[in-house]
């Protein structure tokens, strides 16, 4: 059996809207990937620990609370410290355009704003993982 892409979908921070996260999770599953869904209100430490234990290839962060500036770089840093700087980090949700460069600078591969197409997200993820692999 070949390599199956494992995606951890995380919902850090305090907002309680996980519809978007679930829709993306389903799109990944329908594309033949294994999706680990961790639920609401995760701390960056919990998310990083889960990525390590699950040996995920991809961390897809859904964030609507506006706390991305703090939470996302923290998660990337924690992953690096755990020796998992290789994880593909994606951010989805509401992120003002002005904040995108800083996230990319911090190590996020791409930010998917509202209205992003699911097949585009899935395709980008597959290419990025298989290209690095």
């Amino acid at each position: 059996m070949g390599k199956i892409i494992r995606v951890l979908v995380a919902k850090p921070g305090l907002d309680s809207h996980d519809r978007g996260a679930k829709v993306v999770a389903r799109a990944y599953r329908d594309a033949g990937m294994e999706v680990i869904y961790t639920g609401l209100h995760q701390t960056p430490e919990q998310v990083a620990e889960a990525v390590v234990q699950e040996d995920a290839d991809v961390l897809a962060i859904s964030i609507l609370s506006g706390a991305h500036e703090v939470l996302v770089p923290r998660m990337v840093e924690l992953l690096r410290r755990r020796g998992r700087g290789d994880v593909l980090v994606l951010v989805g949700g509401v992120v003002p355009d002005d904040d995108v460069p800083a996230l990319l600078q911090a190590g996020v591969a791409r930010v998917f704003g509202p209205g992003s197409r699911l097949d585009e997200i899935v395709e980008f993820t597959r290419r990025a993982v298989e290209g690095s692999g």
Partner: protein
Amino acid sequence: MDLASRLRAGDAAALARAITLVENSDAGARRLLSELYPHTGRARVIGITGPPGVGKSTLTDQLAVEFRSEGGLVGVVAVDPTSPFTGGAILGDRVRMTRGAGDPGVFIRSLATRGQLGGLSRATGDVIKLMDAGGRDVILVETVGAGQAEIDIMHYAHSTLVVVAPGLGDEIQAIKAGIMEIGHVFVVNKADRDGADRTAAELEMMLEMAPDRDPGAWRPPVIRTVARDGSGVSEVRRQADAHWAYLKREGGLEEGRRRRAASELAAMAGSLAERHLLEWARISGAWNRVLDQVTERQVDPYGGAEVLFREYREAALLSRTPGNAGGREEL
């Protein structure tokens, strides 16, 4: 340090990577497993099974915290089904494992069944070995939502907990054969709901009707819990401990070790023999010849298999005859 040494030193990232290699049947996985095998057989394995929606994940999480409070390291294997249509899976057990998930002393790994029937993933046995070699003292294995046939957990766990909940219809009917017989501890979860008494009474009755046990044999207890708030969970642990003590006292651990080793050895020997026989049959041409006969109804499949096996054995014997060292090539 190489992967095996890092894993044995308790490195979570190494354990996680090793599990991925085993799940993907990576070329390095077999060597890794054989290197680690001498360091396995130490951990205590507890299975948690039962129908979907009864609260297995929440109970598993609470038990992980219980066992952690004694200071040992805990491993959790949580199995969810793979979609038969897309090959993908959503593994959501972590959503209900929020208490253990904050603690690096609890290593949780979600596995997809990847087409395996029986309630577990094909890699489960090897994943348990990896966690064992990685120093996990207690390993909790949560099966997919199970009914009657999902009883593979009995081959891996020292103790099996069967979890049910009231209000799922005729819940005992749903689990009557199969998993009723593999439980060492029965748990009625969501016991704050209506019907818990009836569910517990039905379980007790089923257990009464079980075949006669030897005097002194383990009698599975029925325990009520509300896993969400933790009530009754420490009693589940006490009963699991009692079953473990019983196994130790009655020699069940030693017997179980040999039984598990035997079932693994038989499975491996069987698949090795099958692979060699079929490979020989294809290369020698015997496969197509016998297949033609079976297709045309000249020989039945059972008889055809016997022909293949007889010819294979003769060829194998021939290749070992002294003075015929090159016999392999002549086959």
